[in-house]
């Protein structure tokens, strides 16, 4: 199928992109990597009058340290999550998640900002912004603001982004020496969206967990932090008993929707299995 006709505008600056969106009466879409938007246009799930290409906006590029954060430009491609040394060092959870995102050629074009903006509940990166306590920088007609990942994902494919607003960068707190992370997902085939996936970041004193953030994807309408499971672990050592308690807590944290191929009970079971494995690995990382 072919997309419905649209006009195309290549923006050179953030202001140009925002202005074009407003002047098209918000009947417009920003296009970054296009790896989700182009199929949606081809299937005519979306049919905007105007496509605004943001990939030539220099301000949206680049990865750099800024205070206690790593500032990752919205246009950072999935493949750069694998190749960029600053990400491997200061945001290793994103580096670990990247090979699970789609296939190599899609990673060559898909962008971090596009993935977070789309907020697909089955996607790796949006969920990892939650585990990382990241902040999303947003530019809009009324200026720029930063929203915590905890407040960004609202409902299915719905975020704190208002129509015509642009994600400019994502700020990730720098990974520290007393932190540990783990990531994995269960999928039918490599490159497929996960049946269940999970990533976590813990701050430890010796064997004791001082703080932990655990985020699941493919378990509901949004990426989901499991606060009940987190609470069972904070202040404790990671032993078999604690891991079992965290696994049991998932029942209260997750309410997987009914779907044709994976019944809720199976998804919850897989989530428990995955959580157990990842906490085990976190413990070995001592």
């Amino acid at each position, binding site marked *: 199928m*072919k997309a419905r*006709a649209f006009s195309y505008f290549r923006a050179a600056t953030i*202001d*140009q992109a925002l202005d074009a969106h407003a002047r098209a009466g918000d009947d417009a879409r920003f296009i970054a990597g296009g790896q989700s938007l182009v199929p949606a246009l081809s299937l005519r799930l979306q049919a905007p009058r105007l496509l605004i290409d943001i990939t030539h906006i220099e301000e949206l590029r680049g990865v750099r340290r800024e205070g206690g954060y790593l500032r990752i430009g919205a246009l950072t491609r999935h493949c750069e999550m694998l190749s960029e040394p600053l990400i491997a060092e200061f945001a290793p959870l994103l580096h670990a998640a990247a090979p699970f995102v*789609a296939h190599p050629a899609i990673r*060559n074009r898909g962008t971090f900002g596009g993935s977070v903006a789309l907020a697909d509940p089955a996607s790796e990166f949006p969920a990892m912004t939650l585990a990382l306590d990241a902040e999303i920088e947003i530019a809009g007609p009324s200026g720029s603001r930063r929203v915590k990942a905890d407040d960004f994902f609202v409902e299915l494919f719905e975020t704190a982004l208002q129509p015509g607003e642009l994600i400019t960068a994502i700020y990730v707190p720098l990974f520290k020496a007393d932190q540990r992370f783990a990531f994995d997902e269960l999928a039918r085939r490599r490159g497929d969206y996960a049946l269940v996936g999970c990533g976590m970041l813990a701050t430890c004193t010796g064997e004791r967990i001082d703080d932990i953030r655990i985020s699941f994807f493919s378990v509901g309408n949004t990426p989901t932090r499991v606060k009940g499971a987190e609470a069972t672990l904070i202040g404790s050592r990671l032993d078999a008993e604690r891991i079992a308690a965290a696994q049991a807590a998932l029942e209260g944290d997750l309410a997987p929707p009914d779907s044709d191929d994976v019944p809720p009970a199976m998804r919850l079971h897989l989530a428990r299995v995955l959580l157990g494995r990842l906490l085990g690995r976190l413990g070995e990382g001592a």
Partner: protein
Amino acid sequence: MSGFDETLLDDADETVRVRFVVNGRKVACEVAPRETLVDCLRNALELTGTHAGCEMGACGACLVQLDGRAVHSCLMFAVQADGAKINTIEGLTESGVIADLQAEFHHRNALQCGFCTPGMLVNAHELLSQIARPSRDEIRDALSGNYCRCTGYEAIVDAIDAVAKARKESGGGT
């Protein structure tokens, strides 16, 4: 401040001029904004080696090299590629950089109908330029977005594995 001209909104059906370097040659085409790169390559430029299968990023038959990286030409509009350097399977063939891969695919029956082959080759070429000696698992992983309905993949993995080994032994990279 703005480079945006509102009259553009009424021009959705009008073609725009795009220029790219395709297989080392400068070309210009008139395209409608909604025309995908794969359609432009196949129809306007008559480079039919790039195949259009699913047209939604799932099968990998449409892979080309854009500014040195493998990308799906069905997941891009031609206007987005304005100013880019593109190599299609025709260009890669002409330059000889994948001659050994092609010979090995032929030798090992790594193609039957051949529909998937251009995409497989573009993908394999990129893989071997990044990892000189990938494991079989790494090869399969890299091919996870390329469908082949004929061969069962084993011969394709064999061919790529054999070329990686041969290149390593002859001391060359790509």
